[in-house]
C-alpha cells in the first residue's frame, strides 16, 4: 500500500514536464489519495542547509513533530546521489543557498529524482508561500502528497527559520554592543593620555561630540581610535 502511494505517476521520467502538468498531476493524485486509508507512512524529509546550527534546529523540530526520517545535508556536492538514496517526500532548503538553480534543474530533469517535485504543496496558498520566502526558506514537495500532511512541516520550518533569525540578530546585537563598549574604552584611554584628563571628562567630551555631530558614541570612539592608529600614538 505504501508503495502504491509512491507511484511515480505518468510524468516521473523522460522529457521534462512543465510545472503546470505537474500541478495537474498533483491535484489528480491528491484526489486519488483521499480515497485511501488515513493511516499513512511517515514522510521522509531532506533538509539542505549550509548552516549546521539552523539545520539542527529544523531537525529537532521535525523530530518533535514525530518525523523520524530526517536527513541533513550541509554540502550540495554530490546532492544528486543523496537525493537518490534518501528518496525524500519533502525537501527543505534555505534561500541563501546559491545552488537553488542547480537543484531546481535537477528536480525537473535528473534521473536521480525518481518522482517529480513541485515547489510548495499548493501554488494557490500565497500566504504560506510569502511567509516562507519572508523567513528565508523554500520547500519542494513530491507530487501526490496531501496538503494537510505537508503544511505542518512547512509551517514548522518557517517558524524555526524565523526563530533562528531572531536568535542570530540578538547574538549580533550583543556582539556589537560588546565591541562598542571595548572601542569606547580604548578611545577614553587615548583621550585621557593625550589630554591629561580624567575618565569622566574623556567620556563627557565624546558624548558632547556625538551629540553635536548627531552620531553614535561608538562611531565617535571608532574615529578617535582610527585617527590615533594612523598617527601612531594609539594608547
Amino acid at each position, binding site marked *: 500500500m505504501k508503495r502504491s502511494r509512491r507511484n511515480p505517476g505518468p510524468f516521473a521520467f523522460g522529457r521534462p514536464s512543465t510545472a503546470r502538468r505537474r500541478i495537474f498531476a498533483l491535484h489528480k493524485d491528491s484526489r486519488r489519495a483521499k480515497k485511501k486509508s488515513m493511516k499513512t507512512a511517515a514522510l521522509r524529509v531532506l533538509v539542505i542547509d549550509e548552516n549546521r546550527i539552523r539545520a539542527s534546529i529544523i531537525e529537532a523540530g521535525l523530530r518533535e513533530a514525530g518525523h523520524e526520517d530526517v536527513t541533513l545535508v550541509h554540502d550540495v556536492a554530490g546532492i544528486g546521489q543523496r537525493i537518490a538514496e534518501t528518496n525524500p517526500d519533502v525537501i527543505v532548503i534555505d534561500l541563501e543557498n546559491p545552488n537553488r538553480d542547480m537543484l531546481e*534543474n535537477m528536480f525537473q530533469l535528473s534521473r536521480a529524482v525518481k518522482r517529480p517535485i513541485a515547489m510548495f504543496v499548493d501554488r494557490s496558498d500565497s500566504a504560506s508561500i510569502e511567509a516562507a520566502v519572508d523567513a528565508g526558506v523554500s520547500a519542494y514537495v513530491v507530487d501526490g502528497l496531501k496538503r494537510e500532511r505537508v503544511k505542518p512541516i512547512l509551517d514548522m520550518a518557517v517558524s524555526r527559520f524565523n526563530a533562528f533569525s531572531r536568535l542570530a540578530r540578538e547574538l549580533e546585537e550583543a556582539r556589537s554592543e560588546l565591541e562598542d563598549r571595548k572601542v569606547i574604552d580604548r578611545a577614553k584611554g587615548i583621550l585621557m593620555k593625550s589630554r591629561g584628563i580624567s575618565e569622566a571628562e574623556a567620556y563627557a567630551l565624546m558624548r558632547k561630540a556625538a551629540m553635536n555631530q548627531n552620531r553614535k558614541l561608538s562611531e565617535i570612539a571608532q574615529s578617535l581610535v582610527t585617527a590615533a592608529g594612523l598617527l601612531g600614538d594609539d594608547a
Partner: protein
Amino acid sequence: MSDARFEISAGFLPLLDSALLVAAREKGFAAAEGIDLTLVRETSWANIRDRLAVGHFQVAHMLAPMPIACNLGLTPLAATTVVPMALGLGGNAVTVSNALWHDMAAHGASGDLSPRAAGDALRAVVAERTRSGAAPLRLGVVHPHSGHNYELRYWLAACGIDPDGDVEIVILPPPLMADALGSRALDGFCAGEPWNTAAVLLGHGRVATVKAKIWRSSPEKVLGADARWCDANAEALSALLRAIHHAAQWCAEPANRAELAGIMAAPAYVGRPAEWMLPALSGHLVTAADSVVDVEDFFVPQAKAATFPWKSHALWFYSQMVRWGQVEHSAANAAIARETYRPDLYRTALKPLGAALPGANAKVEGALPAPTPVGSAGASLVLGPDGFFDGGLFDPDDLDGYIAAQRNLAG
C-alpha cells in the same frame, strides 16, 4: 528621509550587466526621476523569481529568457512577469579549461574567438574523447532558462556537437564557475562577466568564443517586472525606465568606464576587483594570460537600441525552449512568449525624451550583416550587425517554419 515619489525594490545578481540598474541608483538617475531605488543582491535566480512573486521586488535583473519561462509555467513559482526593457546586448563568453584549450589548439583552434573555428576544434576533441572512451566533457551554464544555455547549445549544435548526447551540461551559480574550472569539476562554461575574465586572470582557463559572435546584438539580461505592479504603477514604471535609459547612456560613455568599474567592484555589488570589470566594458577582452582580443560590441549598454525589448528576441528564446524540449510548441505558448516582451511600455516611457526608437517591435534576426542606419522616431539610430554565426536567419513571422526546420536538424 527622502521626498521620492516612488519606492522601488529591485533584485540583482552579482554580474557586470547589473551595471545599468546600479548606475541608475549610484549616479542619481533614479533619484532625479523621483525614485528611491533599493537594490538587493541575491544568491540565485530562483530567489529573484520567488521574491518578485511575493512582492519583495517590483522589478529585477533577470536572464532574458527567464520571464518567458515564468509565464509559460516552466518554473515552480512565478508571478506574471513582463519585460519593459532590456539591460544591454552581449556580455557573456564561453571559457574552457587550460587542458581542454590545449586539446582544441591541437585541432586548429586559433584563439581569435571565431565560433566556427573554436566549434570545429571542439567537435574534433569530442570525437577523439568518444573514440578513446573518455568521459563526456562537462560544460556549465547558470540556468536552464538562460541565454547562456541556448547560445551554448546553438553553437554546439551548429558545429555538429549534440548538446544532450556528446557533452554534459550542468547548472552552476556564476561566481563558482572559475573555481569549478580550476578544480577540474568543469571543462568549460558559458556565463556572464566578470566570471570569464576571472577564470582567465586566476589562470584557470581561456576564452574560446563570445556571445557577441555567436548571436550578434542579442540580449543577455532584461528588466523583469511584476505585471500586477506595472498595471497599477504605470507612472513609476515609466520613471524607472527613463532612469535606466539615462544610466545606460552614462555607462556607454568611454570616459566613465573606470568609474563604473570601481562602482561595480564595491562589496554591495559584484564585490570583486575593478580590473575584472574593465575588459568587458572596454571590449579589450583578456582571453588568456598572454592574449588580449578586441571584441566589437562585446557588451553594448546603450547604442544600437540595446535596451529595446524586441519581440523577435523573445520569440527566438521561445524557439530554443521548444528545440530543447522545455516546452511544447503551440500558438498559445508562442503568444505568451511574444506578449512577455513589452516594447509598448518602453515607447511610452522614452518617447517624451526624444530617444531613438526603432520603428518596429520585431526584426528578422540576421538580416543586418553590417551596422545599418534605420528609420526611427526622432533621433538617428544604427542597428546591427545582428544574427547568428552560422548565417541562420530567424524570421519571427515564420516561427512555425523555424521550429519545424530545427526539428528536422535534430532528426
